[in-house]
């Protein structure tokens, strides 16, 4: 069972917001004593997801939460946008698949960096990506 | 009625303590090697003080009430320390059980002419002391679990030493199964050490790894790739013949990785890369 201990909602519409968001995520990770390598994984995952949000949906909202499950604490990030949505999630989760001109590592790579990864998308309504990174995991 | 028990405990505090100490010291399983008598006495006194001074009428039998939390805290502190000091559960349990005996003894001496009352008061004391025993065991086990967790951490620390074999060459003997948690630690330690020592070659020796399956191989490849990204080379040595067989049978591609059969040949290769030469000096030459 995952308990949410704190919640912080951040609007991401401009490039400056991205820097602000990353700083907040880092602060949160430091607060729960996440190790440096896991911090880097979390921030890199955050960077990938926020770029997707900016590129395909002109921004959105990110919720930063401190979560706890048993002895372990972690950070949960929820990215939601009102963009066009992802037509084929299974394809988007494959290495090397991209509709844009990127390397196509964003989503599958992000999944490898975090402990929990969930993606929901509806055509024309938007996409919600939720990730959890545990402090020691 | 409970007023009396409460009062009684307060008045007879000294007697109970003496009796309890006597009980404890008489116990054959007393660990004089782990705890001195003075220490035991001060522990016992602390607990009785808390027990007596925190009792009030309404909550005498209600262990959930706030008044009990100092007692539980003290008791918890004592049993956690005991768990760490290496007391057995029985020895820790006896600490509380002998207190119960002491209290019941005093109660019996004081309430002489009313068997019904003696029984009901004894039951109350029993109930409380039993709850306290449960608390003791719970914290004792928690203390032991903490010890186990700390030891697990220590084992992972110990089992992944990074050795500086030469200026610029690190060696990392891996002993035991390489799972993903272990790989994380091995990789982090290795990369950190590379930065700190400025070493350009790292040797991962897997002589002590019992088996290499595709998952272990994947972990090894990951470590090698990360080392290369940092600008150092990573050699895998200590590959036993049966491991070479399984690797090929499983179809694992290690062709991008420098592999050597022994740590010695990995070291020789490293010397070559670093343009170093090891020479045998003539026996005639005086040192």
């Amino acid at each position, binding site marked *: 069972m995952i308990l949410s201990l704190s919640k912080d909602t951040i609007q991401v519409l401009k490039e400056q917001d991205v820097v602000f968001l990353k700083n907040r995520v880092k602060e949160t990770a430091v607060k729960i004593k996440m190790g440096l390598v896991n911090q*880097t994984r979390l921030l*890199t995952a955050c960077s990938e997801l926020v770029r997707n949000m900016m590129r395909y949906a002109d921004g959105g909202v990110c919720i930063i939460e401190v979560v706890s499950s048993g002895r372990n604490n972690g950070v949960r990030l929820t990215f939601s946008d009102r963009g066009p949505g992802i037509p084929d999630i299974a394809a988007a989760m494959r290495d090397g698949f991209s509709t844009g001109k990127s390397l196509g590592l964003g989503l599958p790579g*992000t999944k*490898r*960096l975090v402990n929990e990864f969930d993606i929901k998308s509806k055509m024309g309504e938007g996409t919600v990506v939720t990730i959890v990174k545990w402090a020691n995991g | 009625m409970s007023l009396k028990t409460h009062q009684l405990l307060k008045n007879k505090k000294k007697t109970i303590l003496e009796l309890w100490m006597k009980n404890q010291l008489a116990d054959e399983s007393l660990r004089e090697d782990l705890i001195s008598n003075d220490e035991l006495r001060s522990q016992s006194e602390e607990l009785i003080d808390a027990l007596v001074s925190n009792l009030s009428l309404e909550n005498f039998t209600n262990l959930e009430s706030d008044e009990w939390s100092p007692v539980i805290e003290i008791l918890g502190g004592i049993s956690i320390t005991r768990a760490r000091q290496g007391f057995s559960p029985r020895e820790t349990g006896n600490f509380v059980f002998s207190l119960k005996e002491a209290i019941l003894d005093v109660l019996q001496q004081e309430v002489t002419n009313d068997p019904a009352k003696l029984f009901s008061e004894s039951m109350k004391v029993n109930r409380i002391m039993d709850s306290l025993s449960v608390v003791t065991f719970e914290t004792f086990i928690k203390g032991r679990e903490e010890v186990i967790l700390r030891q697990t951490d220590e084992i992972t620390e110990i089992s992944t030493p990074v050795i500086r074999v030469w200026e610029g060459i690190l060696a990392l003997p891996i002993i035991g199964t390489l799972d993903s948690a272990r790989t994380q630690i091995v990789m982090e330690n290795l990369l950190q050490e590379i*930065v700190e020592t400025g070493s350009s070659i790292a040797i991962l020796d897997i002589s002590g790894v019992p088996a290499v399956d595709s998952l272990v191989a994947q972990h090894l490849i*990951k470590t090698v*790739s990360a080392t290369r*990204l*940092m600008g150092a080379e990573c050699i895998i040595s200590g590959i036993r013949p049966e491991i070479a067989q399984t690797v090929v049978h499983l179809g694992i591609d290690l062709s991008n990785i420098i592999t050597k059969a022994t740590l010695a040949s990995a070291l020789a290769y490293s010397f070559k890369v670093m343009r170093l030469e090891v020479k045998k000096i003539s026996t005639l030459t005086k040192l």
Partner: protein
Amino acid sequence: MDKIPILRMGAFLLVTIQVDLYDRLALNLEADLVKMVNKTNAKGVLIDISAVSIVDSFMGRIIGNIASMSKILDAETVVVGMQPAVAITLIELGLPLKGVHTALDMEKGMNMLKSMIDSNEEDTDEDQTDYDLIAE
């Protein structure tokens, strides 16, 4: 607009990235650096990322691009000082930065570039001799 300074040292260009790159800054760096390689006829590019705490797939791609573009302009690229956490993250992300040379620090990177250029020149000399022989 923010710019990352590019220093010229002999036949090499040095870039020290002191801030965490955001996308536009990285794109500017790519363009500036390729222009500089062309203008100065540099033989090597040294990029120090020891102060960079995050490299995601976009930055990884820019670094790869710089290396490939410089290669076409006959310059080798060496990335130096990558943090352990960054290296681990890049591997897990699936970006081993193939085709990019790496070194532990500036000094080692510089030596690497020098030896690469020396061997390249030796190759050219040999080619030259072969050609002369054939010509004769």
